[in-house]
């Protein structure tokens, strides 16, 4: 995803997990977040909720191919509930990712 976004001209900062993403988002401003739903330590939904809980309206795109503990349908509903800009299902096509980013930044 990083390569696809960088090749389209975006500056990308990668995080190892959701906890790092939450910490980084408090220290720096980003135009957009693209996160996996299932990640180590804190999930993509946790990242989305953390941003929304401090009234950060940064667009968040979530991507997933499923994971343990809940169905992707349930995770998608929660992502919609917390105002995700888009939910992408893996395997994510390059053009689909770029279109979602364009829509979210429009």
């Amino acid at each position: 995803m990083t390569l696809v976004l960088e090749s389209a001209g975006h500056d990308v900062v990668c995080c190892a997990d959701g906890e790092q993403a939450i910490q980084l988002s408090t220290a720096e401003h980003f135009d957009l977040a693209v996160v996996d739903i299932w990640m180590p330590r804190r999930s993509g939904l946790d990242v989305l909720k953390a941003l929304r809980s401090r009234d950060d309206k940064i667009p968040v795109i979530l991507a997933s191919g499923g994971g343990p503990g809940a169905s992707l349908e349930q995770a998608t509903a929660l992502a919609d509930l917390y105002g995700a800009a888009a939910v992408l299902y893996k395997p994510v096509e390059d053009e689909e990712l770029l279109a979602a980013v364009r829509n979210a930044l429009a």
Partner: protein
Amino acid sequence: MRASVSLAEVGAGVLIERRGHMALAILLEQAVRLIYPERSPQAMHPGQWAALRYLARTNREAATVAGLARYLGVTLAPASRAAAALVRKGYVRGEPDERDRRVVRLTLTADGLALLDGDPIGRLADAVSQLPDDRQRELAAILEHLFARLSPGSDEGHDGSSFTLDD
């Protein structure tokens, strides 16, 4: 049948004990069953509706039985049965992938797309929309609480691999 006095009006009279908890659980289940009243073999099942919703929003690469299984949180067999039922009903088309003939790509037909316009879950969404905003937020919090406790492995604590559904 319509209750002449609503639960909200009863207020403190609602049983906060096991019998009341069971009653609330049954009412919750009944609310969902009311969305899908048709029970005939030809009827669309909730899982089939969920499959149509998935195919309407997913990309071509993920529109497979395996992708559907991950979305529904089931094994391949029930996902395959749901897909086959939708193909029989003419709402979904299944075609072998050009690069890998073992993979079947699923796409909604025009009839499937048209059927989604009358998705019965819209009735529940409409009912929710009639609640004041603060009650909708309460409902979201209640549902998160329920899912966090009912999802597989939820009683084992957060191990860092699955997401938390509430704080």
